[in-house]
């Protein structure tokens, strides 16, 4: 057994040579440490800083989502009730009849935020609060959470480690992109503080160029998104060069972990598509500020042009959000089922295929725009993009076959991902078909669909990845029982929140409605209850992570028995990742023939020992 920590492990540099401390070791006093983090070019620290920033924005966006759901708990309605006097007694008129008055009920946000704390009197005020809340939720979740979540935090931390490199190709550029991200986020938060934006995260013209024309809120928010785009581009560029130039000796393209393939495809989309949104948002600002007619018909522009520009970026960016999730799943499933991934090349090429086709389907956001036969082409291409995605799901499920499946928290989340993402993918079919889309477009069906894909896909996977790599990032284990409890709460809450919305959509509930007709009430109540369960689930995770940092058991170098290079580093890794440059001698998923590095039977009871282990 002792030979399992074989000579190769030492040779590869992950050994026990304590030449330098972990990257988390403070460099001195408090301010020295803060300065060290603020000026660091270490990809691991930047990854952690991204993680903290993204989780903070996730908290903000989540609050906005809860505000939206709470407002929708009750439909807004006007009711006639008997008036009461100052003492609270029902008022009776001189003729003996009760004095009636009309009040608006069901405006929760307006009741919370109105200065007097009294009853709402204007429909508009409550609606304005609601419209700001859903815009805030969408803009934060898309631009500041989902897009940077996996690439910028987990990607930054693990791409160099998985490639066996000391850092990304351009460490200083990496730090810059973090600061650019924070700057963009500050712009967005500032726009909220000075009154908020009510355009929706899509900023459709001409509404976005004419609303609140006297205020700078919209310009600030749009500039925020514009700046965030630069952060994406810089990170993507950095990753592409890193993958090309910094692979460890012996690592060919098809020896790379699939997470790297996914991040590589993502980076290509980021670099190619983000400039388009940058230009579009800048044109929007120019139109607002200098009255140049580009999108606004009253100035001679065309609002449909904006939609083409916007979705030419924003559809590929859907895959910027989901491809990294595919990468994380492709790591978690083989490691926790101790099984070589099924169809490695198919998954790798499916990533590239998805990235390519994603540029050709933007028109499917505009099927209801004017009814052109061109929509047919986009519909066909949309179905085409379903194929590589479906292939990946088949591959992951085939990987489970004859594996040795441990229901750890990351694996539980990976299985939940397969469940939720399958629903998300399949509900894309009636949206891709032209006839049904004319009914479902801009309804709650779409809302439910993209939450299953974006949240059930990306956020769930981000949480899965955090649990998978948490021991490596912070050197501490967490309480798996409570983490699993959190996972189940998230799963139940998620389905309750969003599955109900499919029915709302087919029954005719339009999205972005501050209120609704009575017949949708029951489903909205269920959906809101689900969102509160989601909140509880995420709070459980938060406490589990805090407990882990404070009182967690020290993590071994390889708690799950993974074979990719990051598990050869220590937990947490030393400042330069590896004591010696690692050399790749086995594939990332060769579980049948390889003993995991730093394997300790106490940490991780393996199902069997490879024949050459002894």
């Amino acid at each position: 057994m002792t030979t399992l920590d074989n000579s190769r492990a030492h040779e590869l540099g992950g050994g026990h040579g304590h030449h330098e401390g972990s990257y988390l070791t403070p460099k001195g006093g408090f301010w020295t440490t803060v300065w060290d983090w603020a000026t660091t070019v270490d990809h691991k620290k930047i990854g952690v800083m991204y993680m903290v920033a993204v989780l903070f924005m996730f908290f903000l966006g989540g609050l906005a989502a809860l505000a939206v759901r709470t407002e929708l708990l009750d439909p807004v309605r006007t009711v006639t009730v008997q008036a009461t006097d100052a003492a609270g007694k029902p008022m009776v008129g001189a003729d003996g009849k009760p004095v009636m008055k009309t009040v608006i009920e069901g405006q929760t946000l307006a009741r919370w935020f109105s200065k007097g704390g009294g009853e709402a009197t204007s429909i508009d005020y409550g609606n304005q609060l609601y419209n700001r809340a859903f815009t805030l939720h969408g803009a934060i979740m898309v631009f500041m959470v989902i897009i940077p979540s996996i690439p910028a935090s987990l990607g930054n931390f693990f791409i160099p480690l998985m490639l066996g490199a000391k850092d990304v190709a351009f460490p200083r550029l990496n730090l810059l992109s973090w600061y650019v991200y924070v700057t963009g986020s500050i712009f967005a938060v500032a726009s909220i503080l000075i009154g908020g934006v009510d355009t929706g995260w899509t900023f459709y013209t001409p509404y976005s160029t004419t609303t609140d024309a006297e205020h700078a809120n919209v310009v600030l928010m749009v500039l925020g998104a514009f700046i965030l785009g630069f952060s994406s581009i810089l990170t993507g560029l950095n990753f592409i060069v890193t993958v090309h130039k910094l692979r460890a000796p012996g690592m060919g393209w098809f020896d790379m972990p699939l997470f790297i393939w996914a991040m590589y495809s993502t980076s290509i989309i980021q670099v190619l598509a983000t400039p388009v949104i940058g230009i579009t948002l800048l044109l929007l600002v120019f139109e607002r500020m200098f009255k140049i007619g580009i999108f606004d018909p009253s100035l001679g522009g065309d609002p449909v042009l904006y939609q083409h520009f916007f979705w030419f970026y924003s559809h590929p960016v859907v895959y910027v959000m989901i491809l990294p999730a595919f990468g994380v799943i492709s790591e978690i499933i083989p490691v926790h089922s101790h099984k070589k991934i099924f169809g490695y090349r198919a998954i790798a090429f499916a990533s590239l295929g998805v990235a390519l086709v994603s540029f050709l389907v933007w028109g499917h956001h505009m099927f209801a725009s004017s009814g052109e036969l061109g929509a047919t082409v986009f519909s066909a291409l949309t179905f085409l993009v379903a194929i590589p995605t479906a292939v990946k799901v088949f591959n992951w499920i085939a990987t489970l076959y004859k594996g040795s499946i441990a229901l750890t928290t990351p694996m539980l989340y990976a299985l939940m991902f397969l469940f939720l993402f399958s629903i998300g993918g399949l509900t894309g079919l009636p949206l891709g078909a032209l006839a049904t889309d004319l009914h479902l477009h801009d309804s709650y069906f779409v809302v439910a669909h993209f939450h299953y894909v974006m949240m059930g896909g990306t956020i769930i996977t981000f949480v899965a990845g955090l649990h998978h790599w948490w021991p490596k990032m912070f050197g501490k284990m967490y309480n798996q029982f409570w983490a699993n409890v959190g996972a189940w709460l998230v799963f139940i809450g998620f389905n309750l929140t969003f599955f109900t919305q499919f029915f709302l959509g087919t029954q005719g509930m339009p999205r972005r409605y501050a209120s609704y007709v009575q017949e949708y009430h029951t489903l909205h109540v269920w959906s809101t209850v689900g969102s509160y369960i989601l909140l509880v689930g995420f709070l459980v995770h938060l406490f589990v992570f805090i407990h882990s940092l404070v009182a967690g058991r020290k993590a071994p170098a390889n708690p799950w028995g993974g074979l990719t290079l990051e598990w050869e580093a220590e937990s947490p890794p030393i400042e330069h990742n590896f004591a010696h440059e690692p050399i790749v001698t086995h594939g990332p998923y060769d579980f049948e023939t390889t003993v995991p590095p730093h394997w300790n039977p106490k940490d991780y009871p393996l199902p069997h020992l490879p024949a050459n282990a002894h």
Partner: protein
Amino acid sequence: MLKTLTNNSISTLAEGPQGWWAVGWRWFFQNFGVNENAALTDKLYMEIFWISVGWFVFLMAIMLFCVVKYRRRPGVPAPYSPSHNTRLELVWTIVPCFFLFYIFLQGFHVYVDKLVAPGDALQMTLTAKKWDWTITYPNGASSPERTLIGADSMQFGGENGSPGARPVPIFYMPGDVPVHINMISQDVMHSFWVPDFRVKFDVFPNRYTTYWFEAKLADQSSSFLKDSNGKEVITAQGKKVPFIDHFIFCAEYCGDQHSEMLGIIRIVPMDYYLAKTEEWNIEGKSPEEIGKLVFSAQGCSACHTVDGSKGAAPTWKDLYMSHQPTNQGSVLADDNYIRESIYTPAAKLVDGYPSNMPVYTTAQIDDKRLHGLIAYMKSLSKFTPAAGAPAPAETPAPEKK
């Protein structure tokens, strides 16, 4: 000209969904067979649904089977299995293609039906603005009827009108006749969605989009139209009027009252529809009557009140010939000011109100309608000179705040 279509497939579809795909149809939809396109959409949706359920259950069953059967047991080795199988991978790449191709073709087929109106359809125009709809009938009339949702017609509305306090327009449409609507917006983008018809199309400020439908008439045993006193309406021919209401929702986000931008399409028999549109025809009516019709039909009533209560725009009660404080100084609300406020509303803004008034063109409100509106305002104002009386003394200018 007005050919009543006798489409057999509609009547059979009206019997409800039939076939394997119809199982569970009621989970998703409320009604069926409003017209053929809606029924075909439901059918396609349910086919996709059951195909999806099949795939989903198949995948999840394999997944759960593996999780249970191959769960980790210490010391028990994972049996060997290949990690690549070209034949299997080809099969699961190609088989879904057939399903997807079928769905695509069906979607395309019904889409074209939804797109192309029959040549003999009734031609109407729709204008959308924040936050109201106006439909102009072939004879130039528009519907002035409005209702609080739930207050009288819609059984599933709120207790006293929901959502919002504003009455929404009712558009009478003939049943069993194709109707073709040319749509344009006066401000931002909107989207005209009648969920019961399973179709929506966006409404743009700078180009026409079209919408067509043909809705089934209620059969004679269904509910009949009632007047505001709750009595059933009897036509000149002594007949009751069967009707079906369908919601209109705005589906493209358009600002503060996006969720109140509703409407009702009321399907009635052709003769009743003709009688109604004739009643609203402004030909041969007095200016004041015309003004009253236009006030409601063009959606002025969405923001302006006539009883002095506060709305989103100045009330018309005692407005005519009064002095209004504006951002251009105090202005006398005479005929010229009213005309200017309709065609170029942003020229002078009354203090305390946002710049929310949509711009009307002289085609939408022609001279006849404009004179009607002014006449209507005159009738509402105490400052209007009485007939035959000498010109009144200057009305007192309101104090500047």
